[in-house]
């Protein structure tokens, strides 16, 4: 039974699931980067940038020292730019350390075709040459269309092509949850 007054779909991650997933991602990042020195988190707006901020706080709590966090807008680097009317640009913020020679981790909410990440890599290269670039995502839903994979995954969610993943974050949507919505 669906109710028009409630968000449709099935909740697959609630607020505490998201919180635990992010905490685990933070620990994994610290472990695999040998203490997160030289680390810069670059979130992809809108929600990826919010997740990057959260991960940055978690990592700095673990490490006891601040982590550089920025945001990288990919709008002008999209391969489907010409398929829709011109889109609004999102902010790009580069931390004062820059990204040259840094260990950069791109952060996004959902990994799907991989095209967003391809665009982010192009956008990133305009700002310098990182020593290494990795990818952290909250949800990996499969269906890649490019040879791209995530290094850190909050939750693998096998989905069908017709389903839609809706990520809500407190900062933007008022609550934390991930839902699967099927196209009617």
């Amino acid at each position, binding site marked *: 039974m669906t109710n028009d007054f409630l968000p449709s779909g099935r909740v697959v991650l609630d607020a505490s699931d998201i919180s635990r997933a992010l905490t685990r991602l933070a620990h994994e990042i610290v472990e695999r980067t040998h203490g997160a020195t030289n680390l810069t988190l670059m979130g992809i707006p809108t929600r990826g940038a919010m997740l990057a901020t959260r991960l940055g706080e978690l990592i700095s709590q673990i490490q006891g020292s601040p982590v550089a966090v920025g945001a990288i*807008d990919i*709008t*002008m*680097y999209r391969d489907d*730019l*010409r*398929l*829709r*009317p*011109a*889109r*609004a*640009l*999102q*902010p*790009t913020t*580069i931390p004062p350390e820059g990204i040259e020679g840094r260990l950069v981790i791109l952060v996004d909410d959902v990994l799907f075709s991989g095209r967003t990440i391809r665009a982010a890599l*192009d956008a990133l290269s*305009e*700002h310098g040459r990182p020593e290494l670039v990795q990818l952290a995502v909250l949800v990996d839903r499969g269906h890649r269309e490019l040879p791209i994979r995530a290094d850190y995954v909050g939750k693998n969610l096998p989905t069908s092509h017709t389903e839609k993943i809706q990520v809500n974050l407190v900062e933007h949507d008022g609550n934390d949850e991930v839902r699967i919505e099927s196209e009617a």
Partner: protein
Amino acid sequence: MKHLLSAADLSRDEALQILDTAKQLSVATEQGVGKLPPLRGRTVVNLFYEDSTRTRISFEAAAKRLSADVINFSAVGSSISKGESLKDTALTLEAMGAHAVVIRHNSSGAPHRLANAGWISGGVVNAGDGTHEHPTQALLDAYTLRDHLRGGEGDLTGLNVTIVGDVLHSRVARSNILLLNTLGAKVRLVAPPTLLPYGVEDWDCEVSYDLDSSLDGSDAVMMLRVQRERMNAAYFPTSHEYSNRYGLNVTRMNRLSQNAVIMHPGPMNRGMEISADVADSNRSVIVEQVANGVSVRMAVLYLMLGGSESLK
């Protein structure tokens, strides 16, 4: 946005979208990104029938920073000087595959004709037509005002902008009045009666003949160039008298409120409408206006050409 012909064509939301886009593009420039990719493979033609330094260079820089191909076409040194009509020039540009034409013309209405006659399929940007309009100048002025007086966000509600000088010949003034009103600012024109257009009392602004009494409460003073090349009659007795009554000098500048800014669309007649001391003072944002011009024109070109053509 298919064309940009008049500042009146822009709704508040469209104008704010251009200013917001320009802001992000100027941040990219500050971050050292010299070239952005969204207009790769698009051709922008600068069609200039009238002399221009900053507008033409500004549009050229804007298009190139967005990776567009730029063709500059000026009246001197082209078949226009052999008497080719606007229509034939337009058909030539269409055959060459121009996606957008930036036109400056000495006849008011030429951009409108170019956009609506069916000669070309691309977008048209009015870069100044006769004494009619110059919408991208109004946008860069609004951007500069917003940056200085509104923290770079939102609209211009509550600002008082005083525009001084040769309103009669000024396309900058016309576009500014339209756009500033759209964005919620109040405009006051100050000029000798001979340099005010017929019917100015129906415009959406205050009109005064006296500069000194108009300075109080102004958040920005925009000085217009005295356009001697368009003046074929005696509009004022002498340059000296004009400068005395309508020129912005240090004494007048010091009467402005603490935060007020001084603007000029350029090119300036130093010593005529604005004294050199004022033009070079820290209240003057004239050089910033030029830098903002590139960002605003990038935003216009991006929003016109960056997306799909079919959905415009």
